[in-house]
């Protein structure tokens, strides 16, 4: 069977790939739907275990604040990454996560090693193999890590460590901030100084970070647009 297929003519190869792509979309949609259903069920199942209820008003408020930032980001990622990955790897990547920090560089690396060009059947196949492998390795490493974390649970819940876990968010935005301020160094000082000044002068805004980050985020995009139009961002 395989030997026979290896001898496919160019036309036969094209027809075979078309059929393959059709099945990738059909099966990709089914798997995506099933996985999304399972992921959405998790909070409710956890609620049953914890005997807790979802507060729908708080959920809608939180979801709006998150969606206004992350849905446009998802759209941009989707438009950029799909042509790089091909269909099969895209279905997998958007379910398995860690896209920009892991799956994309991994797929690009595999593609370069295989010398496959973007948009070809070879790229489609290599990217899918690469993303699937990367996801499986991540799952194995995390599962082993979580097993090893079990004996450390009493340590992790020690009150001495409370300041560490209460400051996860400042730790993230300090580290991430430096990285992004370096990337946008020509305009980063404006939102940073403005945000600090506003929060010092109007302390009630300190607890309104979800509103603040939408306003400051929009303002920064506006500032970067002005810089871009003036050619100040040319490298």
């Amino acid at each position, binding site marked *: 069977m395989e030997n026979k297929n290896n001898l496919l003519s160019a036309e036969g190869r094209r027809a075979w790939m078309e059929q393959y792509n059709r099945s990738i979309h059909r099966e990709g949609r089914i798997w995506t739907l099933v996985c999304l259903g399972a992921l959405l069920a998790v909070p409710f199942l956890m609620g049953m275990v914890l005997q807790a209820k979802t507060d729908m008003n708080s959920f809608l408020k939180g979801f709006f604040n998150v969606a206004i930032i992350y849905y446009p980001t998802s759209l941009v990622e989707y438009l950029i990454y799909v042509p790089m990955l091909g269909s099969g790897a895209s279905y997998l990547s958007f379910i398995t996560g860690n896209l920009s920090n892991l799956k994309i560089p991994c797929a690009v690396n595999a593609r370069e090693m295989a010398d496959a060009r973007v948009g070809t059947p070879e790229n489609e196949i290599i990217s899918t193999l690469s993303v*699937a492998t990367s996801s499986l390795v991540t799952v194995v490493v995390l599962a082993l890590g979580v097993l090893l974390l079990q004996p450390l649970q009493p340590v992790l819940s020690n009150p001495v460590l409370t300041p560490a876990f209460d400051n996860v968010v400042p730790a993230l935005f*300090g580290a991430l901030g430096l990285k992004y301020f370096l990337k946008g160094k020509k305009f980063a000082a404006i939102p940073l100084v403005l945000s600090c000044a506003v929060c010092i002068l109007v*302390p009630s805004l300190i607890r309104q970070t979800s509103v603040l980050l939408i306003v400051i985020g929009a303002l920064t995009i506006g500032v970067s647009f002005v810089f871009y139009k003036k050619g100040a961002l040319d490298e």
Partner: protein
Amino acid sequence: MDVMEKSLLEKLNSPAMYLIVGGVIALVVAMCVYFMVKSWRAGVAVGMDRRVLKKAIVSSATFTVLPAFSVLLGVVALSGSMGIPLPWLRLSVIGNLQYEVNVAQIAATSVGLSGLKITELTADAFVTIALVMTAGILGGALLCLFTLKAYAKKLGGKPKAAGSGKKSFGDWAMIAMFVGMCAAYIGSYAGQAAQKEYLPLATALIAAAAMALCEVLERKCGMKWLENFDLAASMLVAMGAAVLLGGVM
């Protein structure tokens, strides 16, 4: 940590929670294996060299090991405030550290907490936060579900033309959005410092200093491998410092 907090953390780490998470991860593993086998067979069928396919698998596996440890450090970082099972799920599939921490923080303030703190967390707040984290990240998967077939057809399998290398405004807008997001949070820590609550700002500054050191090592000392760890490592350094400073401030 009082008895109530400890009991919530124990519930968040209970076997039933692991079972739920393990089931979903097993489902995603099945999806990966299915696509892997399918694409391997397709590669063989269109005449690709098996050695090339094998090389793609081996190189992807080795490429992933270091970043996966960084992802694991993310689970450690979140485990004290959300338990282990939920961060394990979110970082094994669909999420990433940056998204999870930010969205958990936004969701926590939406349910009326002052932030993502185990000292304030309740079971109701936890499940609401978990639902916000889940629903907020579905954009890409939903786009795949409803538009990928049409988008892939539009792309038509044409090789992508090489760009000029210059960043478009779209690229800058993405950077600007994250600059704005970081500025908003750091501004709020500066505001807290003005109210004599210094620890969040100190933690952020230490994380920034650790990241600056990583950047120097990566760029000037050729330690490119550090890129896989810089974010998680800087966070852990700052969180460690917060423990030491917590007693002083």
